[in-house]
């Protein structure tokens, strides 16, 4: 049973499942997580109680039947389960198309995004998806409909990774398009200027959004586990090449990468942004659990 649980989230197992929808359901169902009820009051279909009208309340929410019965204005209040609007921002730049062993960062990110969308929709929250590279590739606005997952998955499956990363600019663009506050989930390898990324993320925070950053990395990006003289060619900037013996620079490389991660983590923390480093070798449930823990 334990092995079966483990396999739910093993990226290598997931990589064998071609259907993204099935992959997302597989992950979320395997998570065995219960649905939370929102403590926030808002629009919903389930009536909870009446309260007396006070100036400022919307007139369309006045219960006219109660006025006739009690000759007083009452406002109908409902149990609100759909007040969360989640924007899942997926980095679809060429650098995401890398896998040292098994699943690519992009596949992993798609599975993660789909799983989150499924989970959000299952909790009757609204989920939308934005895929981007150096421009917005697809924009699926958040909806709370159960069958909305199909549209989200379609957006995810519609395009493979390509183009250069321009996370900072894209975040600016998206921030301009989002009118209501909600949850921003960024799934990216963050291979862009850290300052630009953080600037974009801060804009979400200024507008009252909650932000979660899933920083995706392949284990090879973290460790540089190569031997011999190698010419490294950049996946995005094809003219960017460097010849080196990885053994000679490995320690420094790891130091540089760790500094980058630490810096990101610190900057996110300082801006009340939830930051999660996810290695593509990591089972998917870890990422989902971190989301759920944030969701409460």
């Amino acid at each position, binding site marked *: 049973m334990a092995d079966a649980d483990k396999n739910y989230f093993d990226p290598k197992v997931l990589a064998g499942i071609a259907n993204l929808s099935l992959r997302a359901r597989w992950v979320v169902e395997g998570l065995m997580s219960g649905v939370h009820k929102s403590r926030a009051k808002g629009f919903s279909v389930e009536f909870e109680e009446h309260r007396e009208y006070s100036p400022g309340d919307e007139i369309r929410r006045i219960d006219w039947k109660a006025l006739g019965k009690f000759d007083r204005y009452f406002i109908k209040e409902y149990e609100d389960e759909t007040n969360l609007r989640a924007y899942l921002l997926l980095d679809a730049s060429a*650098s*995401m198309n*890398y896998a040292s062993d098994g699943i690519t*960062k992009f596949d992993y990110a798609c599975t993660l995004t789909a799983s989150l969308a499924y989970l959000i929709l299952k909790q009757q929250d609204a989920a939308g998806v934005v895929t981007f590279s150096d421009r917005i590739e697809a924009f699926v606005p958040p909806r709370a409909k159960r069958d909305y997952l199909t549209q989200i998955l379609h957006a995810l499956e519609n395009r493979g990774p390509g183009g250069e990363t321009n996370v900072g600019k894209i975040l600016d663009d998206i921030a301009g398009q989002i009118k209501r506050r909600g949850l921003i989930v960024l799934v990216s*390898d963050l*291979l862009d200027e850290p300052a630009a990324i953080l600037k974009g993320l801060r804009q979400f925070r200024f507008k009252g959004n909650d932000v979660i950053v899933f920083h995706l990395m*392949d284990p*090879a*990006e973290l460790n*540089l586990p*190569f031997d*011999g*003289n*190698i*010419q*490294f*060619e*950049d*996946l*995005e*900037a094809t003219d*960017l*090449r*460097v*010849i*080196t*013996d990885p*053994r*000679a*620079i490995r320690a*420094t*490389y790891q*130091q*540089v*990468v760790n500094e*980058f991660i630490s810096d990101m983590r610190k900057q996110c923390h300082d801006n009340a942004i939830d930051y999660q480093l996810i290695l593509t070798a990591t089972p998917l449930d870890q990422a989902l659990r971190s989301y759920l823990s944030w969701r409460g």
Partner: protein
Amino acid sequence: MSLFFLYPAFLLGLLAASLPILIHLLNRRRLQRIQFPAVRFILLSQKRISRSYRLRHWLLLALRTLAVVFLVLLLANPIFQTGAGLFAGGGPVSLVVLLDNSLSMTWSGDGNGFKQAKEAAGLLLSALNAGDRAALVPTSITGAQTIRLKGQKDVLLRELDAVEIADGTAHLTAALDKAYELLSEPAGQKEIRLITDMGLTGWDQFSIAALKRFDPSIPVKVIRISRKEQPLNASIKAIRLGGQGVGVNVPLHIEVTLASFTDQEIKDVLVQLSIGGQNKEQKLATLPPRGETSVSFQTRVSQPGAHSGQVSLKKDGLAGNGVADFTLDAQDKLKVLIVDGDPQTSLVQSDSFFLSRALHPAGEEGSSLFLPTVILADGLNSAALDAYQVVVLCNVATLPDAFVANLQNYLRGGGGLLVFGGDKIQTDNYNQKLAQLAPAELREKKTGPEASGEKIDKFDSAHPALQIFSDPILLESLKSSRVWGYTRANARGKSAVVSLANGDPLLVEQKIGDGKVIFVTTTADRDWTDLPLKTVYLPLIQSLTQYLAGGKRGQLDPGIAVDSVKEIALPPGLVGKSLRVAKPNKQDSEVPIVGAKDRAVAAIADNDRAGIYRLSFPAGAAKDSGAPQMYAVNRPFLESRLEEIGERELQTKLAPARAEVIPVEALKEGGKRTDLALPLLALLIVTLLLEGWLGQRF
């Protein structure tokens, strides 16, 4: 101080030192390409470590190369030596000591160079340890000597004691050949030590390519005997005969050429001439810096036959060979009978006038090699031909029967007949009387005006009597002569010895037994030719007379250089017999006489000492065969030159053998040898450890 290797063949392994660099270069060529998202981090890392990374990289490469070098050197086992001592350990030594005993060692090392050389050789031989073997090879070796490596020091030292200075040049090729032959046997450590003054003459004759055996792995150490100051240095370069030849009581002119090898003028050199052990004359000479000067002597010899002579130089502090021997073959006077067929009241107009003056120029008793007697044609019948070596007929009309009857025997006995033409000659009488003896049939006389005279055009340059024309002045004189009258002669198919421009013979020859007959178709006086007025006339007449007499003109033989071969030509009948040679040191040897074409030859090769070599001919050899009774052997002229070969030039000459020049003083100081194997092993280990540590950091 020197560094050498016990097993130098391993040094070829140094080529392997290039392997790390080659691998490095190959690795650079075989790049693996990987597409990677985080190249920016790699770039950043490279920038951060660039300097230290490159330093470590090159350091690693250097350490790997060094490790190979150290390993190869370790296998080659280097030995560091200070001083010039022998091997101190490391197994038995096979040593060949080449001792330069060439003549120049007499003057090297400020006069005691050979003594120093022998002391140095003694030091080397005394330093031999048990198990070591050595051989002593003097550079005067000719190849015939039996020399072996031996371990008995006392025997070697006795051999050293017996080595004397030689009269010749160092035979470095033969000596080194012997050394390599001796060291061709397997041995632990082999070494050649050459103790020498580095005289240029010996090295000029040396070529490594001429060695029959060669082993470049055997080190050659040259122990140099040097001098502090350049001494006055001169020698006798040449001795030659001046004047007409060597005859009994005839003035004898000897010219001696002296050469200086120093940069300063050498004054007051006493030059002495002695003949037969008697001091004949002495003169003082001054030699210009690095130049030559001639000294002339005039003397006489009173006895015919072979004489030995000597020229010597005397001056305090003068280095270089100061003695040169020579031999003389003094000739008794040649008696010549001149028959004048057209005597005149005026001597000048007589046919014999120019001829007799040519044979006896000064007209004084004893001043010439020739003793001419002039008679008239009437006297021919009663003339005792055997009293004369040569009979000359000048324009004699007819030949008396009695004369012709004697002539055949006279010629077969070795006599010579010279016939000049002229208007009196009756050609039919000559053709009839001398049918069997004449070299040509005489025909009509051809005369013309003097102005239309024929040039003398061709001559047999190989003819012994015409060797005088190697002198361009005499040749020019001959060619400027004109002949306007002559008797045409049919040489019967033989080629004329001298011809006119129109092809008619001027001089024809016939050999009769041991004698010879020569016809000159023109006159002996000025009637038909201007030849008697020319410079060439006297030497031509003397040379023809000498030739017809069958003997050589009295000669001075300056001899040969030490170690040269002297060839003696002998009558063919002596083939198979032997010649006895008495050397200056009284040693006798027999030299076989062998056939060579139409003559017999004795080749005397054992000429290793300077001085007079005397020959004894086998019984039956004619005394007047022309062979010398003695000959001189002299020290090589250039061996007196005390210039040295440069160290670099010497090393080039011996390349690819490793040659090192050590002053003799360094040998006396001894020395120390250090085996560098252990320090190299330590270096190798340290290098490998460093390489391992640094390699792990990558």
